[in-house]
């Protein structure tokens, strides 16, 4: 990359603060999309949301019927309060299923989930999933109302879009 000499402005002259700005250089369109696109380029619908207060039994039946790995629990205002996923079942419910089956799911869900906004980039969602260890991330609008869920399968599907044209894949 060519390093530009910084020209000293004459006294009283306006200096554009961006004159020295080098936009980031991306090796290919996938990298560019990862850092520049909106997270909504990743599929985020349909998703499964339920009101809080349902019993663990009801939520499990719903997950099994709909064949989903995670349910977002929302309040009356459609704002996510927690996420109940397969890992919560394995870690918290399995051993005490007999006692917990009729308790509200709020007791065993993961509270206060990390959310992403439509203005975030796909890179942010990847960071939340890998560094934060969350398999599903709710997508919310500016008022924190739920508009989608992004999971590992959908993120991988987004990566796959960049080489569907290759023969044999």
């Amino acid at each position, binding site marked *: 990359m060519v390093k530009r000499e910084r020209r000293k402005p004459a006294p009283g002259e306006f200096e554009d603060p961006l004159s020295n700005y080098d936009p980031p250089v991306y090796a290919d369109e996938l990298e560019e999309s990862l850092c520049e696109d909106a997270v909504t380029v990743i599929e985020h619908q349909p998703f499964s949301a339920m009101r809080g207060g349902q019993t663990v039994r009801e939520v499990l039946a719903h997950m*099994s019927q709909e064949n989903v790995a995670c349910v977002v629990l929302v309040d009356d205002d459609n704002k996510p309060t927690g996420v109940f996923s*397969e890992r919560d079942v394995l870690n918290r419910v399995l051993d005490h299923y007999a006692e917990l089956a009729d308790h509200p799911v709020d007791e065993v869900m993961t509270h206060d989930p990390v959310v992403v906004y439509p203005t975030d980039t796909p890179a942010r969602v990847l*960071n939340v999933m890998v560094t934060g260890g969350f398999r599903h991330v709710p997508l919310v609008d500016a008022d924190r109302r739920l508009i989608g869920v992004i999971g590992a399968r959908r*993120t991988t599907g987004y990566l796959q879009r960049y080489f569907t044209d290759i023969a044999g894949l």
Partner: protein
Amino acid sequence: MGLRENLLTEPVMKLAMRVLITVRPSTTVRQACEAMRQAKLGAVIVVDDAGHPLGMFNEKLLIRLMAGDAGQLDDPVSKHMTHNVVCMRETGTIAQLIATMQGRKLRWICVVDAGGKATALTGLRGVMEYVVEHHPRSVKVQPMRANLSMDQREGA
């Protein structure tokens, strides 16, 4: 080399791998789940005496089981496992692995060596960790928790 190029040419062995947990067919579902929980992994591979994979038990099957009859948790795992274990050589490309997982709706791929012996487990998460590892400058700088707007007004 860009990320797309990397995914197309790099072999599967470059992905983040998980240690394979194996159980015998006679193990109960409950014991298999305990092994999964200890390893913080969503799946176990059921193997025969010679170590060849017979099937897989994972979290999704557990949900289905619990939503049905929780008494089945003490059944042998071989009764409820899926026989749909997809194996791939470690020399295949990452792009092939992604295409296989997406096409067949899989979350896990069993990695096998030249002799057909299962050596490790990788999956959707392995792919994502690969991307993060190779692009830490783009991905790891992203905030974990961020708010679009401030909760309270600034100033008076």
